[in-house]
């Protein structure tokens, strides 16, 4: 089975990664998403081996059409195309193979998932740009005033290149502090800060003469991005599973899921609300032939705790608690109860940048039964890095 898993990983990597000589676009917005978010909507590729400790396993590949198109044509990354293909970027498709307890093929699975609302993706909101520019307005004024000084013939010709170079370092270099400026360059900057009443920068410098302006500018951007972290994501999905021996539907599921952050987005400990509803139409195995006459509803509500690294802002640990209610409309079996209430939990640990190991468990209060499943979810880019020995 391990061979199968790695063969599939390698094949997909070769197909999408090593076969390309073009520059690989980096989806930075996605790298900071929570693991829970990526399970709901992936913006690149995800390879998952679900429930591999359980009797009903699944090897699944998810992606979105835009990501695949972009691999073939990197020009699609240009903003005009990025906006044009917004619908495709919000669409996910998946396919997989189901395996039984002895790792034998047990049917295909396939599905599509569409984000009706995806307000967490700051890359498509102009409002985000306005907020970033407003946050760093003082730095913009200072930049323009330096341009004004540089353009004047009265400015010492020997000073100009130094002023230009050091000012660029001040804004761009995370190792260049304010105290490293030459006294004459520093005086020009301080005069502008005073004359233009740039109180934000003035305060920073007065508090710490060794302040790093590059970090302060980056922090302004990060603060705005964090404010988008709590925004809602609402998806609708349709998936199906085939029979073992034929490509007819044996389980059709219609799912809707809603995620929204409810804690302070600036805090590295966050909580998000996770609501999910599924209607299943399954084959009634008591009836002869193939049909979808057994139908059931499952509603789940829970909270996902997210622990982010203070340094990188990456989520590295998540814990989800939820309660679910199931109701069987049609096709109740003799040993089944029409209604079922369960408590669910999920522990998710990020072992590499894009590889998560989620452990899911379910508890049925009435019977006292506990079920546990171990999964592995890997983003394609991480797998590619691993195989290339870069990670």
């Amino acid at each position, binding site marked *: 089975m391990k061979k199968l898993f790695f063969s599939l990983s390698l094949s997909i990597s070769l197909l999408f990664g090593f076969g390309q000589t073009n520059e690989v676009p980096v989806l930075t917005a996605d790298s900071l998403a929570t693991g829970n978010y990526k399970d709901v909507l992936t913006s690149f590729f995800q390879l998952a081996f679900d429930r591999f400790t359980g009797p009903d396993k699944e090897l699944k590949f998810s992606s979105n059409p835009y990501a695949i198109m972009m691999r073939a044509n990197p*020009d699609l990354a240009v903003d005009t195309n*990025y906006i044009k293909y917004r619908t495709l970027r919000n669409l996910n498709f998946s396919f997989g193979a189901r395996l039984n307890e002895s790792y034998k093929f047990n049917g295909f699975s396939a599905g599509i998932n569409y984000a009706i609302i995806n307000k967490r993706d700051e890359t498509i909101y102009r409002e985000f740009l306005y907020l970033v520019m407003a946050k760093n307005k003082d730095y913009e004024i200072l930049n323009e005033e330096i341009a004004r000084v540089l*353009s004047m013939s009265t400015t010492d010709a020997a000073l100009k290149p130094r002023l230009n170079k050091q000012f660029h370092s001040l804004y761009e270099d995370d190792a260049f502090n304010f105290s490293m400026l030459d006294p004459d360059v520093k005086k020009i900057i301080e005069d502008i800060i005073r004359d233009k009443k740039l109180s934000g920068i003035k305060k920073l410098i007065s508090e710490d003469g060794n302040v790093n302006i590059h970090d302060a500018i980056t922090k302004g951007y990060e603060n705005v991005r964090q404010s988008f972290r709590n925004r809602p994501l609402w998806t609708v999905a349709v998936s199906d599973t085939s029979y073992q021996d034929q490509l007819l539907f044996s389980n059709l599921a219609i799912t809707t899921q809603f995620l929204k952050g409810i804690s302070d987005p600036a805090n590295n400990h966050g909580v998000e609300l996770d609501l999910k509803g599924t209607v299943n139409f399954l084959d009634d195995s008591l009836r002869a032939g193939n049909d979808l006459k057994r139908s059931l509803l499952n509603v789940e509500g829970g909270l996902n705790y997210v622990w982010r690294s203070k340094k990188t802002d990456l989520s590295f640990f998540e814990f989800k608690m939820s309660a679910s209610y199931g109701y069987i409309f049609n096709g109740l079996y003799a040993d089944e109860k029409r209604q079922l209430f369960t408590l669910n939990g999920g522990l998710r640990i990020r072992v590499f940048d894009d590889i998560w190991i989620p452990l899911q468990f379910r508890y049925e209060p009435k019977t006292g039964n506990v079920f546990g499943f171990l999964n592995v979810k890997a983003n394609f880019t991480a797998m590619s890095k691993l195989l290339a020995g870069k990670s």
Partner: protein
Amino acid sequence: MPTPKKKAAKKGAKKSAAGKTPAKDITTIKKSAKANSTGKKAAVAKPSGNKKATNTIGVSRSIRSLDTTSAGMDLNIIFKLGLGEITATHFREGNKIDRKKITQSGQVHFDNVQVNDVISINGACSGSCTLITNRQTDPPSDSSQPRAYTAGSIFDNLLVEQ
């Protein structure tokens, strides 16, 4: 603040900048040298919608008379994996000569740009951005050394050398 990633940006920028049409959404701001010197606010022109960039030289005769080595300057700007917005301002002798805003990938053109003029770049992008000019500047911004900006605020000053 952008961190130039020259090697990474070079390839895409070269490729994209070559065949780009002028920006579809460019706002221009005219300002005469006289108005600048008296500290008056610049007149803001309405967005030009889907039209090409308008020639908006607002230079007074006195300043134009100083022009001995001027030429046009093109800024080719490419935003990738997100939206972006840049305002480019042309400075000469401490005065704002012209200002243009671009809200999607395209080209900004300034007429009559002289040696020692400065083009100030301000804006933001949510993915990445590359800027290439057709003039020799400090820091360099030609196609062999494009200016590359990562997601976040964009601040730059290009001192025209040739």
